[in-house]
């Protein structure tokens, strides 16, 4: 447990006790808000909300903390609790459609098609239609080959290739060590290279970590 999290738990204890150490419960809560204002603001800002909305959502999250302080289960961890409240606030606000569209868009890994309702745009220097078809066929072969990989290996490769995630990020999501992720990616590439031969280098460039 981090130092900030420990401080937060101590402040929660004070808040539950109605204040301690010569200061009021309000003061304890003010200090708790002070500890997590910036991280929460960042949490919302990186999801594309305007500045005013980020401040508002940060306040909303603290209000959720205040209202739920009586039912807080200490063993669940304060930061996990804070994150859950913030995530719910984020999703609720997203449903009301005030966040930028740059966030929250799902991309299908199965078809490579554009999201519904959006036309696919061909970038500048687009190859001729025949080349495009060939490229799509190769991509289809690659996706099919990836689907045949062992489960964990496949997930690591998909996060790396389609989502451009770092080793340590993949490791966090898959609950693996970064070294294991590296091994999975190495073996995945090796298998795909054996299966796809010459197509492979073109479709799946060397991984630089």
């Amino acid at each position, binding site marked *: 447990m981090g130092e900030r999290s420990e401080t937060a738990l101590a402040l929660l204890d004070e808040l539950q006790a109605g204040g301690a150490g010569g200061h009021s419960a*309000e003061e304890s809560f*003010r200090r708790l808000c002070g500890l997590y204002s910036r991280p929460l603001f960042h949490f919302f800002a990186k999801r594309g909300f305007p500045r005013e909305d980020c*401040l508002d959502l940060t306040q909303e999250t603290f209000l959720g903390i205040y209202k739920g302080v009586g039912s807080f289960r200490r063993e669940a961890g304060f930061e996990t609790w804070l994150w859950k409240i913030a995530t719910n606030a984020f999703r609720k606000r997203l449903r009301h459609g005030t966040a930028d569209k740059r966030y929250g868009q799902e991309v299908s890994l199965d078809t490579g098609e554009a999201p519904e309702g959006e036309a696919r745009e061909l970038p500048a220097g687009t190859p001729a239609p025949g080349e495009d078809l060939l490229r799509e066929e190769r991509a289809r072969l690659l996706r099919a080959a990836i689907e045949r990989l062992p489960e964990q290996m496949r997930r690591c490769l998909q996060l790396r290739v389609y989502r451009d995630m770092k080793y340590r990020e993949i490791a*966090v999501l898959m609950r693996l060590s970064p070294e294991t992720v590296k091994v999975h990616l190495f073996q995945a590439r090796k298998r795909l290279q054996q299966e796809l031969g010459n197509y492979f280098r073109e479709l799946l460039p060397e991984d630089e970590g």
Partner: protein
Amino acid sequence: MKDFHPEPDELAADLAGELSPEEEKRVQDHLVACRECSELLLDLAALGDPDYGADEPFTPADADAVWEGVRKRIGHEETVLPFRAPVRTSPPRWLAALAATLLVAVLGLSLWVASLRRAVEDLSRPQINAPVIDLQPGARRGEATATAEVPAAARLFTLVLLPERRGTYEDYEAEIAGADGATVWRERGLEPNAFGSFSLTLPRRTLGPGNYRVRLSGIGPGGRRELLGEYGLRL
């Protein structure tokens, strides 16, 4: 994979490795396909890092604005009293009082039932050598009264009431009063035996230690009551 987002609880449980293998597979496949959920989960993992958000342009004035907003919202929050203890929610007082009352009632009822059972058991068992005490009339006249010496082990004892005068009545009644004159027991339906006396068998526990008066009455037409004898009794 597009049709659901796991709840925050489920995502956090996945990060903590607390899901079943089936749930874990479903959530992890979703994370591969869903940028929103995977980035949320990365934020949860990073929230404990002191550097999380360190580069965010967030001034002390922003922090003050957040706090002022929170304070104002708490003030407007009707469901929570401002900075009282909304914590460790205890049951309402009336509920606690009701629970205590019920507990006392149940305990009292249990004791009463237990004592009743003991009494029933006492009375159900045969008793040998139950004392029979002849009571002579005369207490009304201030003469010597019979003293009932009931052995400690006796559960039942029988009083034989010899009436001071005889007559024929529709019914007969016996009454026992305490030293203060208050009636502790009364019953109609007595019938004289072949010798013209009346018998009365009592459980010892009916009367505590002390002095009593026993009255025998005859009930005539119209409910008219005539005293046939009064007896002194000491237990």
